[in-house]
């Protein structure tokens, strides 16, 4: 059963142009395009373009997949009545959820390797097994955190249009305040303030550090981790509340 659901879940993802554009197309293209413009610059921590932006764009894909194909998709199924028809069948909610989570992990991992592969070809990114394993584990943790946060946020939507507008806006906001375009410290003050409240910005900072073997326990990494954990805990609270109310 799970295998069948997963197969069709993946198939549906590939047929939804809108998801494909925001996950598998925009991030890699932006990654390459920015590389053309700023490929020779050096960034914080004495890192090259590829060292900074490869982990960033992996994270951006993950964010896109989790928010669109996981979160928004749930609102769509709930509001169009697809969920109602499925509720009528004996299939368990857990099977559906697990399939959805596995789908996200498969697609985001695909994004991970896609960006990494582009980086190796275009920017001579090197492959270091030890670092790769640690980075991949961190990526999985962020994946889990994003799944929980997006579940909570989208559980609050009762209309598909609202959720759609929100998704597109939040994608822009995250892209600009998450450090995916210009470095945040080169941005206006208000952007920096928003960034401080953007969990994806904190993930990005941590991920870049882990990716390059520069992670250390200090004030800023503790603050970032703490903020992410806070968001996850708050999201779990929201999910619990919504589940109670829906019953």
């Amino acid at each position: 059963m799970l295998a069948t659901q997963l197969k069709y879940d993946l198939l549906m993802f590939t047929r939804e142009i809108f998801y494909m554009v925001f996950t598998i197309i925009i991030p890699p293209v932006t990654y390459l395009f920015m590389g053309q413009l700023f490929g020779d610059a050096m960034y914080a921590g004495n890192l090259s373009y590829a060292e900074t932006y490869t982990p960033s764009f992996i994270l951006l894909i993950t964010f896109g997949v989790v928010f669109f194909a996981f979160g928004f998709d749930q609102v769509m199924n709930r509001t169009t009545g697809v969920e109602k028809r499925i509720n009528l069948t004996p299939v368990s909610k857990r099977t559906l959820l697990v399939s959805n989570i596995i789908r996200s992990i498969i697609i985001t991992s695909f994004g991970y390797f896609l960006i990494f592969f582009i980086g190796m070809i275009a920017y001579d990114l090197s492959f270091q097994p030890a670092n790769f394993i640690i980075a991949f584990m961190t990526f999985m943790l962020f994946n889990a955190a994003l799944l929980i946060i997006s579940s909570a946020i989208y559980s609050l939507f009762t209309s598909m249009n609202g959720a759609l507008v929100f998704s597109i806006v939040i994608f822009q906001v995250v892209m600009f305040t998450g450090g995916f375009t210009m470095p945040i410290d080169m941005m206006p003050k208000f952007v920096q303030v928003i960034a401080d409240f953007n969990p994806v910005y904190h993930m990005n900072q941590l991920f870049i550090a882990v990716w390059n073997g520069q992670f250390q326990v200090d004030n800023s990494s503790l603050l970032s981790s703490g903020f992410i954990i806070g968001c996850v805990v708050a999201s779990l609270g929201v999910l619990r509340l919504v589940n109670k109310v829906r019953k």
Partner: protein
Amino acid sequence: MEIVRVNNLKKAYGDNKVLRGIDFKANAGEVIGVIGKNGAGKSTFLEILMTLKPYDSGNVLLFGKELNGLSTNQLEHIRKDISAVLQPTQFYKTLKVVELLKLFKAYYKSPVDIEQIITDFKLQPHRKKYFDKLSGGWKQIVSLAIAFLSEPKMLILDEPTTGLDPHMRNMLWLYITDYNKRTGGTVILTTHNMDEVELYCDKVMLLNDGINEMFDTTEWILSTGYKSINDFYLSKVSI
């Protein structure tokens, strides 16, 4: 054998008291039509029977089990024996008809042969089409085909024939009556077409002002002097 028993069922949406004490009963093999004006609460009633909606008070027994007391697990178990066409039924819009059939076959762990269903329901020309792109009538046919995948003991249909042309309507009724004869399954449906009720339903329940103003056999209603069920409806229900 008793399939459904409902006693004094009440359901309100906020201040809107839609069902104010319904009594209802369905036995194995019966075809029962639920009628009433728009907004009378027919869909609400059916969705409660489908285990989709909670209710405020009263009893709903499906296959002898009170719904309110069931765990999620037990509900999922009971859903194996129920199938339905909703008003309107929606499916994943980026799956093709044949893919939907396969997916729902897996949901129901059904032994039914998909190719047989496709032949039976004349779906061959539509098998590769997205559900979203089908005409309203074919959507209904596909919904019904999917409902039959589970070989249900009870089939609930919410306005299955609304919007169908006369041939499609006949075809749909052919499937429904055939299912009923072949498997002895119970059918509970709503419709605004009183001729259908007269032709195909053993019993009629008239929902009016939140109660079952009438619940009896079609035969009996006609024997009390009404020319037709349409006549009966018009004289019982005011605008």
